[in-house]
């Protein structure tokens, strides 16, 4: 006698459940390349940097020993590092503030119809498209302490008297001005495009209503348009800040951190110590200092953006 107990058949999936399951699989499949990229090129190097910062690793050796927080202690005690940390904040804050202001102005200008708008837009976007190494080589000549075209023009215009000269890359303050100028020039197109997208997304009826209610230009900008653009502004600022905070190319190509290590930012100092100097542990320790600031910035900005969306 057959005593097999019949197993109740699984309830058939409804059409909705089948679609949801395949949606989930599709979602995972489509996210996978980005996640793998982030894991391989961001997460793993970050964890490696964290580990190396606790060791005496050097460029010429595959062996290392753990030294605890010694690298961090040495780095914090270094006047060069403290200067680089300060420079990083100044570089980021000043350049991004300038970019936001100028980007707003450019975006508003590009909203208006005018002849040659296409060409203007192309020229504005060009710095973003140009490879930074080539662009910086051009700027290197513009700011050259001996052959600067800026100085030459100022001299011809009578601004610089006899014996007067701007040593753009040989003076600590002027060096930072030069670095910030290039970063603004480079980031402006990106911010302009994002702000333009934000401005054009504001319905015209809102502007018209505010005009009817007697709002002036600045009232309209600061009380209506900027609050409405906050999510987009947040994205622009977040990208700009992160990009600038972690950038080393402008400093490395323009001043190499000089004069006497006074224009280094954290990224360029990490490169000089870790790669050029061969002290990988120390370089990693310098680089790790970027992380807490970036995390705080990202959390803050994303929260601000989310709050604005909810409202």
């Amino acid at each position, binding site marked *: 006698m057959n005593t097999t107990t019949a197993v109740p058949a699984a309830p058939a999936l409804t059409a909705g459940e089948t679609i949801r399951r*395949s949606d989930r699989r*599709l979602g995972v*499949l*489509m996210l*996978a*390349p980005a996640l793998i990229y982030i894991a391989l090129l961001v997460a793993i190097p970050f964890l490696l940097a964290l580990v190396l910062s606790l060791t*005496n690793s*050097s*460029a*010429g*050796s*595959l*062996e290392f020993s753990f030294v605890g927080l010694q690298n961090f202690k*040495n780095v914090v005690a270094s*006047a060069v590092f403290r200067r680089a940390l300060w420079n990083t904040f100044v570089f980021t804050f000043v350049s991004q503030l300038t970019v936001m202001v100028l980007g707003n102005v450019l975006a508003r200008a590009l909203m208006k119809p005018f002849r040659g708008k296409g060409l203007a837009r192309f020229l504005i976007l060009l710095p973003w498209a140009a490879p930074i190494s080539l662009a910086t080589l051009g700027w290197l000549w513009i700011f050259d*302490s*001996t*052959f600067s075209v800026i100085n030459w023009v100022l001299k011809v215009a009578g601004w610089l008297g006899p014996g007067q*000269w701007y*040593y*753009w*890359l*040989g*003076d600590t303050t002027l*060096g930072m001005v030069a670095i910030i100028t290039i970063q603004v020039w480079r980031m402006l197109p990106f911010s302009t495009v994002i702000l333009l997208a934000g401005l054009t997304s504001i319905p015209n009826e809102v502007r018209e209503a505010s005009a009817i209610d007697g709002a002036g230009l600045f009232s309209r900008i600061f009380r209506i348009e900027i609050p409405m653009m906050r999510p987009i502004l947040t994205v622009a600022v977040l990208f700009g800040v992160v990009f600038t905070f972690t950038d080393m190319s402008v400093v490395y190509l323009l*001043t*190499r*951190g*000089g*004069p*006497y*290590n*006074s224009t280094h930012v954290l990224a360029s100092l990490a490169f*000089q*110590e870790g*790669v*050029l*100097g*061969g*002290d990988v542990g120390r370089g990693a320790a310098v680089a790790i200092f970027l992380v807490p600031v970036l995390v705080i910035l990202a959390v803050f900005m994303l929260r601000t953006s989310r709050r604005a969306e909810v409202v």
Partner: protein
Amino acid sequence: MQTRRQFVVRGTTLVAVGAAATAAGPTIVVRDARAAGQLKVLQWAHFVPAYDKWFDPFAKEWGAKHGVEVTVDHVNFAEVVPRATADVAAQSGHDIHMFIGLASAFEEQVIDLTDVSSALEKKYGKPVELAHRSTYNPFTRKQFAISDMWVPDPGNYHKEIWTKIGKPNGPVSYDDLVWAAPEVKKVAPQMQIPIGIGLSQDIDSNMAVRNMLWCHGGSIQDKDGNVVLNSPETLRALEYAKKLYSVGMTQAVLSWNAASNNQAFNAQETSYILNSISAYRTAQDNKLPVLDHYFFVPALKGPTGTQLASEHVMSGYVIWKFSKNQDAAKEFLVGLIDASRESMLASKLYNFPSYYGAAAEANTPLNKKSESGAAWIAAQCNKDPFGSNPPDKLALLAKSLPWSTNLGYPGFANPAEGEIFDTYVLTDMFAKAATGALSPKDSMMEASNRAKEIFTKWRQKKMVPGGGKDK
């Protein structure tokens, strides 16, 4: 008919499969070419472009004769160390890596070339002392590199200007520079920088500040590897730099890169620089107005008569431990030394052989080879085959060996000296003292502490001697 969802799923799957195939393909299809006899060389892009035009065909021809396919990659000089770091981290890349400064930091990752060095000595005699001190570590007793060439670092001066101020043969001592600076300003007010000695974070400045330091009796280490930067002699050098900067330089020199002093001299914006003959050859190639006034002097003397200059460039060829063709690599290095005459001529006398004996006349007995090689070198310098006017303009280079020395003087080159070089500890010390950013004493102490930190670290790795007598 497929739905949009089905299309997206199939398309995504196809892309994923394609990407996987692309990644896997080469590992399946291509055999390891190294097994077939390949040699990859990483070489700097020479400051005299004509040299690379000789080197690349030389390497190919050598390879063809020896059944090896030789590939040469040229990188900017600033990329030499980062590329080495990358190759070591990946444990693959090139077989031979040419350093133009100190290769000693990578000692652990390279093979011992004592056999090559011994073979070359048996063939040509000993290398010049500064090449030996740049490629051998007496602490670990390892010949970590082979040098085929070094480059003298003479003073380059503007003869017309110096004649006007009463010194037609140029400066002899560092005090001459301090004396000359205000005189140059009077006779050539258009010159932006009367004395063009760099104090910036670049290779030329690194050499220049070491020259100043040594000629004033100071040094980073003593001959036994103890850090002795904190000394009255160093202070004297810094006081000198401060004086020279105040009378003869501007902030421009704080921003110079490796090409800046060349550019300034060729544009007649300065009357004196420390440089190899690369700037001169550029002036020749481009027939610049400065050419007729372009002359050379030996290393300057310090206050006690010490006359020393660092080599401007010292080649150090290493063979990585991960190289799969180490024997061929060793033979290549020997072949390169064999071609020392051709190398010197191809570089327009920029390269000086590290083995003088390799430039000797054929059939010269071993004990006379260095002498014969020196005679040949002198013959080239005394009558420049590349059109100097007068023909003996470069004659002083033939006598440059006595006043040329290695990075690490008075000791051997080592990884700590290399790290101090590559992180600009010394140029910063001089720049801060010269500009008043720090007092000379504070500047010296800051640099000394950093130097001791670096030396201590490398001593813990047992690659650098000394420590008991650090100042």
